[in-house]
């Protein structure tokens, strides 16, 4: 067994809650798992809203410190990252896609800045042209082009466009781990498929591992290798994706699966909508 790409052991994060004199509450409670122990993989994290998924992602990215527990990337303890060089090395390999695309870009800055900067630092683009080319290539993977993005400010883009820009930015440097926090929540089904396919391709062809946080069980089912289901900061169930989602064990997982809306309501289920509590 090769060493895992990413390893989390007993990770806890607590926040002090509620104004001046609040108690502290655990947003992430004793979470352990590994990513990429057996080659590149896509790990889906699904679960309740507010269950600590984003917090977990942030701890992996090192932007939030774990209250306790250990996070190791390629056998390197993230708590020991000190200088800029170490950080840069880390970021070359691990890239995020943040949950809210409207927040992920500075409204006062043009979007291409982020792309070009990423290209320069992590895709070894030496010249402006090279950086532009790298950015354009990444944007094309998500159905955009540099021409469309260049010179635009975030508020000039639709939510889906922003989300795609965020994805493209993360891809520029060919990282070995992507932490994607609901990367396709604002994208239409067709594009979503394209992006999810892209993730799959990244894994299969480039050996990128992906942590895929989502509420969309369907895409999680279709691309992920393993799945982690969280509720109130705790991992309630984890395992091989299809097996777990086909036959969930934990009551919450079962409830979750049951709640998934299927598009295939017609023609069979249609009258159900007439009932007072259809869903």
């Amino acid at each position, binding site marked *: 067994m090769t060493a895992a790409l990413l390893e989390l052991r007993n990770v806890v994060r607590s926040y002090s809650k*509620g104004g001046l004199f609040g108690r502290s509450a655990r947003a992430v409670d004793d979470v352990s798992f590994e990513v990429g122990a057996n080659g590149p993989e896509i790990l889906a994290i*699904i679960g*309740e*809203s*507010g*269950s600590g998924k*984003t917090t977990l992602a942030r701890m992996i990215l090192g932007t939030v410190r774990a209250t306790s527990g250990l996070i190791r990337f390629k056998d390197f303890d993230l708590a020991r990252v000190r200088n800029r060089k170490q950080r840069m090395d880390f970021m070359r390999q691990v890239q995020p896609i943040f*949950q*809210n695309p*409207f*927040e992920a870009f500075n409204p006062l800055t043009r979007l291409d800045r982020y792309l070009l900067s990423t290209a320069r630092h992590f895709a070894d683009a030496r010249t402006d042209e090279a950086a532009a080319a790298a950015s354009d290539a990444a944007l*094309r993977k998500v*159905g*955009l*082009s540099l*021409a*469309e993005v260049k010179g635009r400010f975030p508020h000039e*883009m*639709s*939510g*889906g*466009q922003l*989300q*795609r820009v965020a994805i493209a930015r993360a891809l520029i440097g060919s990282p070995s781990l992507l932490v994607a926090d*609901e990367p396709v*929540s*604002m*994208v*239409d*089904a*067709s*594009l*979503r*498929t*394209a992006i*999810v*396919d892209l993730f799959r391709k990244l894994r299969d062809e480039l050996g990128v591992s992906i942590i895929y946080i989502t*509420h*969309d*069980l*369907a895409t999680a*089912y*279709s691309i992920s290798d393993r799945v982690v289901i969280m509720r109130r900061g705790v991992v309630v169930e984890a395992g091989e994706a299809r097996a777990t*989602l086909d036959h969930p064990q934990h009551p919450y997982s079962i409830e*979750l699966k049951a*709640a*998934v*809306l*299927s*598009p*295939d*309501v*017609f*023609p069979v289920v*249609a009258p159900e*909508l007439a009932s*007072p*509590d*259809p*869903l």
Partner: protein
Amino acid sequence: MTTVSQARPVVEVSRLRAYYQTHQFGVQRDVRAVDDVSLKVMPNEIYGLAGESSCGKSTLIKTIAGAIRPPLKVQGGHVVFNFGGREMDLYQSTPEALDAIRWKHLSYVMQGSMGVLNPVRRVKHSFVDFAYRHIHKPMPEFMALVRHHLGRVHLGPEVLEAFPHELSGGMRQRLAIALATVCKPELIIADEPTTALDVIVQKGVLGMIREVQRELKTSMIFVTHDMAVHAHLCDRLGVMYAGRLIEEGATRDIFNHPRHPYTTHLIASLPRIGSTVAIKALEGAPPNLADPPKGCRFHPRCPLAMDICQQQVPAFAEVAPGHRVACFAVNPVAVAEPVEVAA
């Protein structure tokens, strides 16, 4: 939804065009995010709006909700509301008249609604600001009503005392929905209100929406990318592509017999849990709305494209009762009238 009402529509949109106009440094650029759209929403009806990302759904919705801020400009067309028998043309009315109908008759949930709550005030104050004046009840009763309403979106009364930043994205989104529905307006316009919700909560919230709508015979325009949500919630569905409506009909008809090639593709590409068949994404890139393709805007990506598609704009015409499509492959003779140039 099976009962197509003969009553007057709650909102009637005709030949609406709204462009993002930027005159930045001498160069004018028009992004034609809404181009010649006409639709009607009947009382007691949920009208779903689907379409590719960045096709102009949010813009359309903003235009209907009167949320016009520069650089967005309405270039032509009308939005006429009909609340309680009184007609009102949105773009001919005074701001005061508009303020008077907001939230009482018309409410709006904007996209990215996590950021719409005032960060330095407790949540309850937002409810007071938006809704109190429309609900003619004393404060304690009003708060009780709000608490009750929050229960419907699975939120406890304690969130009223919280500051927005203390709540997760999903909680804030539910608050935005609760805020928009608490006054039980006649028309609710909602732009991707459930994107940040987990499926369980989403189901609950949709249930609530449906319930409110049934109870009050409210109408609703609902934008989401989740076709499953459309399938469960909407009476009628409109599909947009590149700033235009390209197909509209009863939800069931659209799901069962999509006619426009884009809709066909959209329905076909829905992911299903348990299915492992690889889904094919649409070839090509979404059109650039600042410089859309001539003719039918879908033609560069259309498997059925013909010569005429590159020249003429297909009319958005009825092909079956209550079912309209804009496609030459479906309706070879219907050519759209050219839009009149705005004054």
